[in-house]
């Protein structure tokens, strides 16, 4: 028969053992989660930033963009074109956000989203035309993952709302966080 003190001691020991066990399990879970997070980093590579608004070459690039829309004909061609444009404008938005050019950055973000939305219908069209597109679907998933990662990072550095007051023009209220959330939502659909 154990005394009350001994029973209490054993109970404490059990408690300690459980605590250790739980700590180890928790640490393992955290470690695995951290490792998983590290592995989940997308290997998809975004392009270098191109010309920025304000440059004469930027305007030329806009013309080039319009012309290329017809050069990239076909389901796969349009897939490539829209993905390229979406990538390009995302990089542009990131760069402009870094320089706190929120109005231009927001426009670039919207453009990137507009092109991103057009990508998947190209794959559906390819399917309709009897083209196999498994590799392209994987590519789109990787792109969506990379876009989401970068947009999530931006959320921590960008103000949620910003009043943009340019000289001699009426001010604009930019709901940047809302914009970023909408952009992420677009990408998450393709994950």
């Amino acid at each position: 028969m154990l005394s009350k003190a001994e029973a209490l001691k054993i109970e404490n020991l059990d408690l300690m053992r459980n605590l250790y066990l739980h700590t180890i399990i928790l640490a393992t879970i955290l470690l695995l989660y951290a490792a998983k997070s590290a592995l989940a980093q997308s290997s998809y590579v975004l392009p270098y930033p191109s010309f920025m608004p304000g440059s004469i070459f930027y305007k030329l690039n806009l013309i080039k963009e319009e012309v290329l829309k017809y050069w990239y004909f076909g389901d796969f061609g349009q897939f490539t074109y829209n993905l390229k444009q979406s990538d390009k404008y995302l990089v542009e938005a990131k760069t402009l956000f870094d320089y706190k050019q929120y109005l231009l950055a927001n426009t670039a973000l919207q453009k990137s989203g507009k092109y991103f939305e057009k990508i998947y219908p190209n794959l559906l069209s390819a399917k309709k035309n009897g083209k196999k597109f498994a590799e392209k679907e994987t590519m789109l998933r990787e792109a969506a993952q990379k876009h989401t990662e970068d947009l999530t990072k931006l959320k921590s550095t960008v103000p949620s709302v910003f009043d943009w007051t340019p000289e001699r023009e009426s001010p604009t209220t930019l709901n940047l966080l809302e914009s970023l959330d909408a952009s992420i939502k677009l990408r998450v659909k393709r994950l």
Partner: protein
Amino acid sequence: MRVITSIFIITLVLFSVFTYAYVDANLSYLKILYTGYYFTHRILLASFYIVLIAVLFACFYFFTQHQNGAGLAKHSGKHKLNLKKIIVFTIIATIFAYPAALAFDIFNYMTTAKVVFFYQENPYIIYPIEFINDPYLEFTRAVNKTALYGPFWILLTGIPYFAGLGNFVLTMFSFKLLVAGFFVGTVILLNKLDKNAVLFFALNPLVIIETLVSSHNDIVMMFFALLAFYLLRLNKLSSLMSFIASVMIKFSTVFLLPVFLLSIVGKIKKTYKYSAILMFIIFLLSPLREELYPWYAIWFIAFTAFLYRNRFLQNLVLVFSFGLMLRYIPYMASGNYLGVTPIIRNLLMIAPVVIFLVYSWLRMLKGNNG
């Protein structure tokens, strides 16, 4: 001459039969004709090839020696050489040859046409390899490359592509017919420009094999280049359009631009001589891009054909054509592109030229002494 002609045509028929030994193992459409001999009888096939090529060039040598300036017109007398008839028989003898015995370019043309006209994608952006499970991928080379040729060529391939009605064999022979059509067109043009130039081009075994057997599109490029020179006298705008069409086939003729522009303003004589020189320079520079392919010789042979007054030059081109056709032997015999193959290939190409030059030099010395 009739005997030589018969030997020439019979050898071409044998060559056409010989090409079927090289039916690709992965070419399911011609599975019934697959023998695998090119794996199991390499040396034997290479030996056959040497004999066939040697006979063809020997006949060609006799033809060139026999030429007396009548072009496509009929000769009379005991030694008549009916060039028109020989060309027709040459086409008949080779049109049914398997086109991928020496090079796989025809499959590349067909696959690119399929990317445009079947999948309706831009071949300058989308690789054929992106069409997973497409049956053409099993036997087409360079499927990881976008279109290699000019837009006008791709447009032209629509004709044989649709003529093939979706049937591989029919499409393949439609491509062959298209190229043969341009061969005939080139011969007619040569005849119009200078009757004496026909034989040297039309009966050159290199031109015949690379055009009528392997169906390389170089003949199409050269047709439009020659048409540009032909139209110069008639309509300068049409001539310019034809020149652009030629460049839009395979780009190489862009190097003829100085000669062409000087011809437009009438500031150049010896157009063909300078064209031949320019095309020969580009031919020599082609290894910078890839390698020295025998069919690139068509670029300068087309212009050398006009230089028939220079017997030595034409004989030199004849011998060089023979050397170029020997370049296929090392791979045929070994099945290996690497190792000593490139060295042997170059040696085989140069050897006939060196022998010819030494022989000519010795003959000249003997003549001087005599």
